[in-house]
């Protein structure tokens, strides 16, 4: 209610009080000679004042209620925003940690492949913490891998298909 911004509160209270007093005078105290002479104008003006006063008083009460609600919501939103910021920071950190772990894992696997391909199987199995039986098994696996690496040719058709699978599929237009 923009009008409430221009009128001071006491003016609104005065309008309301004037309306109440005028209405009492116009409708109840009509027997007094001075009032009875102007009865109709007093009744009309006082009813207009009473209506306007009531309207503004209602507006004031509403404004106060909504101002309080506004403040409550503002405080609630501030808490939620702070919490959202905290959650963002936390998630950002967790996501970065996960990303670093994934990258490291990929690098470790690539390095392990390199080590198995280029290293001496006997020396490699000495460095791992395994039982004798498991070491023999790993050594055999590394030797098998190195043999495959030396002897296996990669068919070009296979490469084509692998590359096809790794190509980003075309976007479907909506």
């Amino acid at each position: 209610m923009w009008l409430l911004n221009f009128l001071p509160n006491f003016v609104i209270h005065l309008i309301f009080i004037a309306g109440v007093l005028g209405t009492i005078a116009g409708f109840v105290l009509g027997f007094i000679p001075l009032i009875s002479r102007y009865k109709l104008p007093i009744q009309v003006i006082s009813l207009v004042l009473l209506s306007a006063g009531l309207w503004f008083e209602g507006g004031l009460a509403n404004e106060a209620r909504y101002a309080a609600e506004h403040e409550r919501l503002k405080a609630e939103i501030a808490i939620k925003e702070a919490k959202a910021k905290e959650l963002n920071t936390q998630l950002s950190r967790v996501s970065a940690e996960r990303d670093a772990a994934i990258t490291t894992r990929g690098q470790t696997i690539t390095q392990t492949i390199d080590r198995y391909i280029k290293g001496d199987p006997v020396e490699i199995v000495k460095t791992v913490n395994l039982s004798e039986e498991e070491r023999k098994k790993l050594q055999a696996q590394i030797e098998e891998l190195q043999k495959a690496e030396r002897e296996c040719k990669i068919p070009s058709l296979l490469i084509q298909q692998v590359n096809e699978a790794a190509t980003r599929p075309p976007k479907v237009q909506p």
Partner: protein
Amino acid sequence: MNKILIILLTFTLSGCSMMPRLTSAKPEFPGPFVDEKTQQMPKCEDLKQVPADVNSMSEVFKIIVENYTTYWRCSNQVDGWAEWYEQQKKNYDSK
């Protein structure tokens, strides 16, 4: 007089319907995942292709491993967006 009273009563009651509008804040999408330089959502990287002249099996498998890593990094990003949405929704919906 009665007509005046009705008009005045209607005018008076209309004051009750005057309500200021309240709006609530919403989180800015996409939270912590926006690229700081471009201010846009980062896209998933393209997967690596195996060179046509590759002559060892291990090279092929290393590229496959790198592609798996790329996939998991992208998956982490997408999962992060979903997680972010769930967290923010829960936060803003809570009383």
